[in-house]
């Protein structure tokens, strides 16, 4: 059902009685041209772009839980393209451009809000690192602004400029960055895909990828075997569990990352702010809650929940930049499973098994990648060629040494 001024008004007068389901609950077909494992943001976007850009309609997304139940529904919603490494910049910028047109494209308001992403720096060397990053962006035509302390103060006057352990020296601002409404992104892509004929099979778990003679033939699921010519594993934190069934071992570890929301308060934080002397990031949701997070809990985990030290550490970091929020209350905290790659950058590639593709390694940052990730995987699955903006995101880069290590922390995922 198309959303328009007309449909909104007429439904208001009809007591909202005629809205139709935004997606179907189809029975699995015996065979699809393409099967996407994982009904998160990336899986749904992949299906959407396969249908929209490449004309595939006999495709399905299988999701073991409800669609959007994974990290797409539990992240801190930060969207930006302020990357430093040449392998990443074109990809994330492509993504940001897609975000900028997403609502019109999907006819769904994902509430993308380009309020700016401000990375605070706290030393001269960190300023230079940020300048390096900003300049790398500018090389690709992506605007970045290096703000000094006073310019930062104008944007976020309530930060602790005077008594902080790590004083604020300035910040790198990407004004085009911001946040989007996480659930709506999953729902918008799902609605878009469904309306183009994609079967979204919720509560359907991939159990075993079937490979014959080096070629994928389909997937054993909790609702029976589904034949498919091509299969994409787009299961974020659970990638290795599925890949393992096809005999693949990957440079990925799964960790839990916690996220936090406070009680709703009147508007305080106008943009996304990150703390450079820690690993903290915060923004305020449309509803008024402060949404924030920091580092991973440092151990591998598939339980989407974290522990108290991680909670306290995060909140100490919050207080480190904004001590005045001491009386704002934590409302809820939860966890999501992160597919941490060995260099902190993602992988969108073929696997060495014909017809089997992977899309993983999103670490802290895959929400912002959602549209481009789907776009590029769709391109790869449809054409068997990497999309030009995703050529660096190869699986064999660890063998060749073409690693994309933004943080410089090396092959230890929990340090990225």
């Amino acid at each position: 059902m198309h959303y328009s001024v007309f449909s909104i008004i007429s439904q208001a007068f009809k007591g909202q009685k005629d809205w139709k389901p935004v997606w179907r609950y189809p029975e699995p077909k015996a065979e699809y041209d393409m099967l996407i494992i994982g009904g998160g943001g990336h899986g749904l976007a992949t299906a959407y772009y396969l249908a929209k850009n490449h004309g595939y309609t006999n495709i399905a997304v299988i999701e073991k839980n409800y669609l959007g139940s994974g990290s797409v529904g539990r992240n801190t919603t930060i969207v930006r393209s302020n990357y430093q490494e040449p392998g990443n910049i074109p990809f994330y910028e492509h993504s940001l451009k897609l975000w900028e047109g997403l609502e019109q494209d999907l006819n769904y308001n994902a509430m993308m809000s380009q309020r700016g992403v401000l990375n605070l720096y706290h030393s001269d060397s960190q300023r230079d690192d940020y300048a390096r990053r900003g300049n790398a962006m500018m090389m690709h035509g992506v605007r970045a602004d290096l703000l000094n302390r006073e310019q930062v103060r104008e944007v976020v006057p309530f930060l602790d400029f005077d008594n902080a352990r790590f004083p604020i020296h300035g910040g790198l601002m990407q004004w085009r960055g911001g946040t989007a409404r996480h659930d709506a992104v999953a729902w918008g892509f799902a609605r878009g895909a469904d309306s183009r004929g994609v079967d979204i099979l919720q509560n359907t778990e991939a159990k075993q990828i079937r490979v014959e003679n080096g070629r994928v033939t389909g997937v054993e699921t909790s609702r029976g075997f589904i034949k498919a010519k091509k299969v994409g594993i787009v299961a974020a934190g659970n990638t290795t569990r599925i890949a393992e069934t096809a005999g693949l071992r990957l440079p990925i570890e799964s960790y839990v990352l916690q996220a936090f929301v406070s009680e709703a308060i009147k508007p305080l934080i106008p943009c996304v702010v990150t703390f450079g002397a820690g690993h903290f990031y915060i923004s305020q949701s449309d509803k008024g809650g402060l949404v924030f997070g920091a580092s991973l809990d440092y151990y591998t985990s598939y339980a989407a929940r974290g522990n108290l030290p991680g909670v306290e550490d995060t909140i100490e970091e919050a207080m480190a930049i904004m001590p005045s929020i001491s009386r704002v209350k934590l409302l809820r905290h939860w966890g999501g499973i992160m597919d941490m790659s060995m260099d902190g950058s993602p992988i969108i590639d073929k696997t060495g098994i014909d017809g089997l593709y992977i899309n993983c390694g999103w670490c802290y940052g895959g929400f912002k990648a959602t549209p481009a990730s789907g776009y590029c995987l769709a391109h790869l699955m449809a054409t068997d060629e990497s999309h030009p903006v995703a050529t660096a995101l190869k699986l064999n880069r660890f063998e060749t040494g073409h690693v994309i290590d933004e943080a410089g922390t090396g092959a230890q995922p929990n340090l990225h």
Partner: protein
Amino acid sequence: MKNSNRLASGGLIDRAKPLSFQFDGKTYQGYAGDTLASALLANNVQLVARSFKYHRPRGVLTAGSEEPNALVELRTGARHEPNVRATMAELYEGLNARSQNRWPSLAFDLGAVNSLLSPFFAAGFYYKTFMWPAAFWEKVYEPLIRRAAGLGKPPLSDDPDSYEKAFAHCDLLVIGAGPAGLAAALTAARSGARVILADEGPMLGGRLLSDRRIIGNQSGLDWVKAIEAELGSFPNVRIMPRTTIFGVYDHGVYGALERVNDHVATPPAHEPRQRAYRIYAKRAVLAAGAIERPHVFGNNDRPGVMLGSAMRTYLNRYAVVPTKRVAIFTSSDEGYATAQDLINAGASVQAIIDSRKDATISAPKDVPYFKGAKILRALGNRQVQGVEIELADGSTRILDCDGVAMSNGWNPAVHLTCHQGGRPVWDDKTNAFLPGKLPAGLSVAGAAQGHFSLKDTLTDGFRLGASAVDDLGFKAHAIAAPDTDPESLAHIPLWRVKTSKGKCFVDFQHDVTDTDIELANREGFRSVEHMKRYTTLGMATDQGKTSNISGLAILGEASGRSMAEVGTTIFRPPYTPVALGALAGHHVHKGFRPTRLTPSHQWAEEQGAVFMETGLWLRAQYFPKKKNESWLDAMNREVEITRSKVGVCDVSTLGKIDLQGKDVGTFLDRVYTGTFSTLPVGKVRYGLMMREDGFVQDDGTTARLSENRWLMTTTTAGAGKVMAHLEFCHQVLWPELDIAFTSVTEQWAQYSIAGPHARDVLKKLVDPQHDMSNEAFTYMACGAITICNGIPARLFRISFSGELAYEIGVPNRYGDALIRAIMKAGEEFGITPYGLEALSTMRIEKGHVAGGELNGQTTPRDLGLIKMVSQKKDCIGKHMSERPAMLDADRPIFVGLKPKNPQAKLTGGAHFLDKGAKPSLDNDLGHMMSVAYSPMLKSWIGLGIVKRGRERIGDTIRAVDFVRGTEFEVEICDPVFFDPQGERLRG
């Protein structure tokens, strides 16, 4: 009007302590023992808040932490706190509260127009709209939405109060001090086990404070007092009132918040406002009770509509009749007890409206009584002024009343059982979700387990308290539950009144109605989790404590599924919201992370040094001579003096590791790129360490102090990481090697004395028996010496500055004295102290790599240090550093950079482009890693990596800094700018 709703006697308030307080600027009176809610109700203040979306008038729904409506702003000025539940705020003299989310006033709130627009504002409205025209979202719609959002105003100034963290340990943690919790605590306590009994309220007793009950041959209250007294007599019991267990974490770790001083105006001196505990409990009993369910009917949100159990709390505990003419809407026998309590208090029960056709309990005499009836809607706006009811035969009528008491059964407070992924299980017998899979070590007692009768509750408590500690090897004696007065518990839930008129609220705070839930279902949001997110049911500050279950039931009904099929959404910590300040404790401001001070810190402070953070350390950045000397002038001066005379710098922060044992040489050969086993005693060698992935992780020098004793230094930032790495290599990779590590970073105060007069200065300090001549103590020599009449010291002839230089280490207790002595000894040579700026400039002049270059992204080859990688042996990282991409001739490599115009201020982070090349990632040649103004070259200079840089020495390229708006032509040169032959340091 004063306390017009207060009963003349009774209650647990202290009538001898009247308190005055303010709400929205008006002064009222209450008593010690009141909450803000009970005191407002005593003064017949019914309207206390506005709802989130529609700004509907709201009153007090509950008497506990589950309150969704009565949120206020508390305290003024810097102590301002938003979103405080009036039902939990204990009254104190002078309390000042204000309503929130309304303008201009609570009674006349313009935001209430939203209510008129409610036909548009259905669930999911946002997602369908605000898209036309596209540009309007950011500029118009979103700012509007944001302005309307949120409840209370955020505090903007620094909190004058402090917070603490603390740790506690016990055998058994009892969560909740109602009858079940008290019973569990008592059995466990008598066995000798260490017990912590925590309750979020200020008094022990739970529902026994609200319900008039008999236990054995005493009143419920007396029973509580007796148990409290006995518990108080055990040294092994710790009672923690005002303490909420907010989260259950792995392995028996519980998060708790103690509101130490929220019940007073300001905390007494030296006391925190709140304290966050991490409780380590071997076992826990959850005795958190149950939360009563509201009914869903038209205008059920009007002030005056209240939970029956809450009404009883106000009557019995606070001696307040919240409203005087009450209609009771019940689906359980509970409602009749409420009626009786109201009658006892002299209020009028206007009617009992029981939704059950076949209720078997009988109504109190003279009370109008309707079986099989329902309330269709409440009348009135800012307070209930009657209800319209539908009788069993379908006819309707209007009843006069000013309040409604709702009793629709109970939801066990199972929240904490879900914090580790457990899902509650629907139970048809109790009509409730009961705990499912429990966190290890936790058991559930009393109403929280769905055991609603007092006798069962007590039995549970005694039994589970005993079995928990028996598990741990204590011997608990069984205690039999005393008999209690009779009660009747029959109940058939009525999830909503389908025929009702007006808006029927399920989630009060978020204004989620039954039709919103139906709409979500209609649009395909059938999973409970989808419904929750689409409608925001249960996402407000109360996390749906009163609304979730009804919402699920309505979804189930709309989609033709049973409660069990629908299931619940997941409960997450915290159980109730926790102030961020408490979770940060004292880790605020400068206390956020420890500050490490160098041995010369106090002296440097006296010199007026400017300090900078390097990791946790505070180090001198430069020593301004006059007040306003700029960093650049100071640095220039410090470098010039050091290079022409002599300078001194505190280098104690470098990591120092003492390595002893026969296999240290072998070990060092494996962890360093170079060979160390051949290093003679009394010598120092520079070493480079890679990670196993082939990138450089650290550098430093290692000295061989004796045959089997070595001293390694690391970078300041790398000290901890290197230590862990070495321990890994030893304990995990090569346990067969015989080595002992000890960190000695803090044992030694170490100063670098550099410059042509370094030896002269040193000679004045070093005891005369040591030969300090260039021949006797050569470049890269080291040794143990004594200084200043026998103080043991270590001397290393190493140089980062490129000058004749020594590092001298003394036991830290002499660190302060030594810097003063060095300065004194150097006076005649014109010595200067130098800070990190000068240090950095001199190392850049010498082309040494440091922080900016050791960024974890560079290999030895990238840094021009490939010669340091021995080709004769393996070492950590060797193989991975030889992957094809890392040997690529196009990989940027380390060079020096000189601006064509010496005054051109180079900047770190600038990128390089060829002349005429357009900015693009393909044309990007590399970037500037470190820059300095070189007082020696009278020019800015830089170090960086450039594609094919070594082949291009002499070429001119552009250093482009878009974000700072500068661009300079620079010449690629050798990274060693100063004294390329290294003659000075050997002199």
